[in-house]
């Protein structure tokens, strides 16, 4: 039954599962991000103001250095995450997660599921948490984190984040060895059905070339500085600051930093200072969001 385990079916199944758990179903954030965590629905929302926050969304992610010109069966510079953020972390969150796997046709009882220590840290977001990577028959299919800190600020109550690596998960479910062979829509090829490769291989090729060879680093350096200045300006007026647009600039800067990194133009000694600059933007935006910028 190929229809039931297509890439898009996995997404819609996860969506309906988490809607049933009371999550707000959101759409991807409309900027390039390195991970689903960057979405304001995670970074800012876990800092308040609602003590209860449940959201689920798909987020396209970009990691320019992972580009392989569409030639590596496992690595992509653009891929999808399915992100679930629930605050406070529910008592049965692990079981909910295992239930969700059943829902997409992966019965944990038929496999070897393992929760293997993997603590998460995002230096650019000043965020960290403890958790696991979840293995299914040796394959890492999800990341599970109890958020302890975001923007250097304690997350209270603690939120639980589940990130499904959709391509990996789908490859596992479809028993496929090459990501580009993934069945996207469950429709027969002859009837116009599409694979992951039909949709994305050209994009991977072109963006790999862009990321590694063609991007104008002088533009990028300028864009980074502009984003940083804009972010500062938006938070400058202590009475009338704009937290969300400021954070938007932070996300931009973070991606531009990744592009610069892919071009290999940031030396080891500079690297740390760029990370610190993004982190400062993230922290100020988070404080602004909490109304604590003046404190």
């Amino acid at each position, binding site marked *: 039954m190929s229809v039931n385990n297509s890439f898009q079916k996995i997404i819609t199944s996860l969506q309906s599962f988490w809607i049933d758990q009371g999550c707000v179903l959101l759409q991807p954030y409309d900027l390039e991000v390195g991970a689903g965590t960057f979405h304001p629905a995670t970074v800012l929302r876990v800092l308040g103001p609602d003590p209860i926050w449940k959201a689920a969304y798909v987020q396209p992610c970009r990691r320019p250095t992972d580009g392989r010109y569409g030639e590596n069966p496992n690595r992509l510079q653009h891929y999808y995450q399915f992100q679930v953020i629930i605050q*406070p972390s529910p008592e049965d969150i692990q079981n909910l997660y295992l239930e969700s796997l059943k829902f997409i046709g992966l019965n944990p009882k038929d496999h070897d599921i393992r929760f293997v220590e993997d603590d998460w840290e995002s230096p650019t977001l000043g965020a960290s948490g403890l958790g696991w990577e979840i293995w299914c028959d*040796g394959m890492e299919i999800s990341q599970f984190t109890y958020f302890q800190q975001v923007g250097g600020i304690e997350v209270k109550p603690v939120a639980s984040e589940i990130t499904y690596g959709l391509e990996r998960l789908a490859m596992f479910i479809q028993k496929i060895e090459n990501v580009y062979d993934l069945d996207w829509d469950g429709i027969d090829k002859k009837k116009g059905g599409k694979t992951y490769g039909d949709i994305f291989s050209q994009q991977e090729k072109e963006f790999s070339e862009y990321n590694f060879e063609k991007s104008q680093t002088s533009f990028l350096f300028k864009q980074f500085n502009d984003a940083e200045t804009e972010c500062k300006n938006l938070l400058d007026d202590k009475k009338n600051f704009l937290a969300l647009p400021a954070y938007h600039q932070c996300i931009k800067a973070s991606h531009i930093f990744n592009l610069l990194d892919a071009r290999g133009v940031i030396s*080891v000694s500079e690297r740390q200072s760029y990370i610190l600059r993004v982190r400062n933007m993230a922290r100020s935006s988070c404080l602004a969001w909490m109304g604590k910028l003046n404190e």
Partner: protein
Amino acid sequence: MNNMEKNRGNLLLEFFSEEIPARMQSNSEIQLQNLFVKSLTQRDIAFESFKTFSGPRHLSIIIKNIELEQKDLEIEKRGPRFDANQKAIDGFLKSNQLKKNEIIIKETNNGKFYFHSQMIKGKKTYEVLPDIINEIVNSFVWPKSQRWANTDLKWARPLRNIVLLLNNDVVKGKVEIGKNVFLNFTNFTFSHRYFDKKIVINKIENYEQLLEENFVILDRNKRLDKIINDTSSLLDKRKFKLVNDKFLIEEVVGLVEYPNILIGSISKEFMKLPREVLSTAMRVHQKYFSITDKENNLESKFLFVANSIKEKDRDFRVIEGNERVLKARLSDASYFFENDITNTFENWNEKLKNVLFYESLGSIHDKIIRMSNISKIFAKMFGVRLDLAKQAAILSKADLVSEMVTEFPELQGIMGGYYAKIKNEHEEVVKAISEHYKPKGVSDDLPETKLGSLLSIVDKIDTLVGFFSIDKKPTGSKDPFALRRNSFSIVQILINFKINLSLNELLEPSLKEYGCSSHSIKQNLIDFMIDKLKYVFSNKNNRMDVVNSVLNTKIVNDLPIKIISSRIDSISKFTKINDFKIFLANHKRINNILKSEKFSNDAELQINPKVFDTIEEENIYNLSNSFSKEIIKKSICEKSQDFLINYLIKMNEPISLFFDNVIVNHNDYDIKINRLNLLKNLHNSISKFSIFELIED
């Protein structure tokens, strides 16, 4: 039933949590037992024995024959003397809120005093247990811990349930894990995730078995045994061997509640990858074990431990899944390998210019230049070709920027060796690069070749001297750059290869490379190294006092390491010989006389032979002079150490005669000083060899 048994019972405490990291489990067992025993001892509650268990989710302790009641406690408070004035007595009564009839007079060693004694009735154990458990929970320290939901408590992962049974009954109580958030003590726990069953524990003695029936083996040693036994029964019949990996097996024990050994296959196409690449890709990311045949050749198979109950269909699926994952990993590795072998060392070294070694210590490229300069100086001493020494240093760090090492940092050095071989470098250079990170710890193997040892030492000296030169030496328990381990490695190689270099000679070229002329930095380095020398020598079954006697000599930093080594050997050998013991006794006597005269400087003292009025003085004078000459001549000859000690022994008689017939403390001040100076000079020249007074009888 005797009285003791009637007042005692068994206790079970279980912390049930989400999956605790494997590396923390063993220690958590020890901590649990220590904290529990401490809490019980403080409250004077005795018990007979305990047993602890730990796994991914269950951490528990059974305490056998624990007292069900605290002993009554008599507290006695001493008041004023019996004959003290009324004011003092009233004060004692008032401050303790006592009535007159509640105090008594008692005789003590110091006289009669007023006393108040009070009996505190022992509580029932079940009454104090909630306090104890709260105490344990709050004092528990995890290497890394977290909050969850609304808790303030930190635990390695969320703590979900606490079983507390005393004599098979649930103890009433709870643990506060956050503001108004509690965990009540229960009598149930949970099975393996496959069944996700709640299990009620009716009898503590059935606890372990009950869980095993539900596919949780609580005892980590039992899990380990099961893994080992099942593995050998699987492998033996196929004539395979498991590559022994203590760390991995210990980790795997902490990842499974019910181990299920499975074997998968590796596609043949990957078997051409270097062996270390295969085993690292398997071990680090996937926690798979490598398998070899009886001749130690890697088989195209891997073994892993699933957390499941044997079932044919499922096992088949699980193996298939794991094979797919490994295939993806290995295609990545092949891709890196193919890319790397088309790259060049020149290109990599160019990249090293952008890789920081450490702030203000330059790039890795700067490091290899320094290393190659030092290698040239030491090459002859290590008996290796100068050009090879230089080449090995220059190529040694290139692999750090190769794709394979970027992905698998633990393959540093090893990949460099493979790539150097592919580029047709000299075989000594190849071997040296691949083994220059050795030894990685006190128990690791040393490099096998001379060039490998040289490269290893030069690399480590550069690191050590560099960090000392920017004042980043280890302090207390902090040693972020692993400089202690680093210098242990240097010392091990020096001793093992009997290197004819002194600490001064060893450090000087590197200090020069860093342009460091500070005397105090050099002294710190030397002290640091001497400390490690002492440790390594004493670990080689040498007596600590003998080691100290040689390493505490003033000129030790100018003494070649191989001389230090052979001197320690010689002295150790002689300590068993009677004549030498006599020498030591004589020497100690000289030392005591000088100590009481408080001679402070070691300068050569003027002795006037004309003041001598005994033949014994003259003898000592001549002996002292000739030993001084001998030690200058022979001190750095490896084979002369025995000779020098024999020379000392020859002094036994003259020294004895001196003590028998000469009074040091002579009435004539000049004679006295002359005699003391005589002894002092003798002592000084002997102390260039060894500080013999440090050697215990």
